[in-house]
């Protein structure tokens, strides 16, 4: 697989433009990039070499995006500001935005892209980066990778396109009013990384599961308008795919296992488990 991944400025810390007021009462806009994926419990049918979307029984947030959204909600609660939930994809994605609104997202943006599965990572990053810039957000939260493609390129890619710092594998973000402090794993434990806006935080498993919605939130979410932005609205020109898949191969097959039957084989199985597999 050959990836033309954009140059990522840093995975640790780069100063960006000084942040414009993050204390409570000042305006901080956090964009949360969300992807709708088949739920991990949903049965997947493959048709013509692709997942048959019509057969997906349940769509959900990509799990790492949930951590990003929850962290954004907590940051908003502690430091004030506004959350813009942004997703790119076909019309079905509007459900995702309503779910985000039900737990507290203030503004909902749907980047309409019926052909999202035909776009490569760099093209999706372009869409999202343009949407972030149009939203006016200076802080961007997203999952470290999507549960369906696992590419892991959205956070760094968007950061590169908008000229922002990027911190990956984040579990927690706080704000002291002058910048942002993210917690991420290090070789010796955890490290605190500070960044100032504009910055992108790509979340690993966070410290809090996404909160459950409530009826009041759901009722408000149903009335909340969704801003739908087309490629034209964003002024984005999607060129030819920048990613070329040269070859694709399935994982190597496991060697066949050994089969034992009958009580007389117990001692053989036990000795193999003990001496060969080292599991007992």
């Amino acid at each position: 697989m050959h990836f033309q991944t954009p140059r990522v400025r840093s995975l640790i810390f780069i100063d960006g433009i000084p942040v414009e007021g993050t204390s409570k009462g000042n305006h901080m806009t956090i964009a949360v990039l969300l992807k709708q994926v088949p739920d991990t419990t949903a049965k997947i049918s493959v048709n013509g070499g692709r997942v048959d979307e019509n057969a997906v029984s349940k769509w959900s947030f990509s799990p790492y995006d949930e951590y990003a959204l929850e962290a954004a909600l907590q940051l908003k609660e502690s430091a004030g500001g506004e959350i813009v939930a942004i997703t790119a994809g076909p019309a079905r994605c509007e459900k995702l935005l309503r779910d985000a609104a039900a737990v507290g997202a203030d503004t909902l943006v749907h980047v309409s892209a019926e052909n999202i599965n035909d776009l490569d990572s760099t093209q999706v990053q372009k869409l999202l980066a343009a949407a972030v810039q149009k939203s006016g957000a200076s802080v961007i939260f997203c999952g470290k990778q999507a549960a369906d493609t696992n590419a892991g390129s959205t956070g760094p890619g968007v950061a590169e396109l908008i000229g922002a710092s990027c911190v990956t594998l984040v579990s927690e973000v706080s704000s002291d009013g002058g910048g942002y402090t993210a917690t991420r794993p290090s070789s010796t434990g955890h490290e605190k990384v500070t960044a100032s806006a504009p910055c992108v935080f790509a979340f690993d498993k966070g410290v809090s599961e996404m909160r459950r919605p409530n009826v009041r939130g759901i009722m408000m979410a149903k009335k909340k308008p969704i801003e739908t932005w087309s490629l034209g609205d964003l002024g984005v020109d999607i060129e030819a795919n920048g990613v070329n898949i040269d070859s694709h191969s399935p994982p190597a097959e496991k060697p066949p296992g050994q089969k034992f039957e009958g009580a007389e084989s117990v001692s053989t199985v036990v000795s193999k488990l003990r001496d060969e597999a080292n599991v007992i």
Partner: protein
Amino acid sequence: MVRDMVRDFVDEEVIPKIEHACRDGVFPDEWRVALGEMGVLGAPLKGYDCPGLSYTAYGVICRELERGDSGLRSFASVQGSLAMYPIWDFGSEEQKQHYLPKMASGEWIGCFGLTEPDYGSNPGDMITKAEDMGDHYLLNGAKMWITNGTVAQLAVVWAKLDGVIRGFIVEKDDPGFSAPEMKGKHSLKASVTSELVFQDCKIPKDRILPGVKGLRGPFSCLNNARYGISWGAVGAAQACFDSAKEYSLSRIQFTHPIASYQLVQNKLAWMLREITKAQLLAYHLGQKKDAGTWIPEHISLAKMNNVDIALEIAREARDIHGANGILDEYCIMRHMANLESVKTYEGTHDIHNLILGRHITGIQAFTREL
């Protein structure tokens, strides 16, 4: 979205813990907290921090809760339909302001005292009485089979005042009031069931529900609760059906999954058929509730039918599970045992038949006197 919220809660928080809760005979307090946080208690009530959902949405909530366990749905039914509703409909403005927000949030649990040890299907003959003592009321009597009784902060109690049935709000610390838990149940084990005992129980004058006299009060509450049951039973049936389907596809006998045999498919098809009919019945009733075109007999028909088929579906599902069906690894026996209670409470199956019989013939058959 409300359905998904409750469904996710049941899948993530209830089903993994329900068998443990049943073995311990407790209703986990975190479920009370979660129901309050989700904002589903008193679902169809409007104002006073109540959710203000449609009756159809309330029904869907009941279905999803009972897919987890009838005890969970019972908790929500009692809180919303039997304790909050009478305060909302018949209470004074002060009572509504004081109690309903705390009950909608789950901070306060309510229970409903109507049935007595000797008076179940004929509550009109209840013994529990209230006396006007000038500056307070004095309650004497006992109630039985009261869901949430021991854990409740308040009870809506129906008692005769000068021979007329009236509703009273009794708080748990009122002198002369106790609520011992009933033990030894083989059904609704994850639900608290209690007696309510009133021995010269003294309550302030402002705790009487001013807006209703006679059996219309408790029956209004029961209509709402029975409506919720008609949906809830569908959820229990769905849980049994889902388990039976999964089991029959994975259980190999005579070298093939038992789901491939016609007798098993016949059972599954019948279960699906009855679930679909029951759900349509509940849905149609929900639409009538929302439109205000329902009559109590509609509710009797739906409650009676849906609990009946849910119980039969549980039995068929147990049959498909074979011996495994009796284990608590599967939900079947738990739902079956629960549904035996659900068939009897909130108007027994037979009483609902008599309600329909009276509606059809114009002749009441509850008593010997015509």
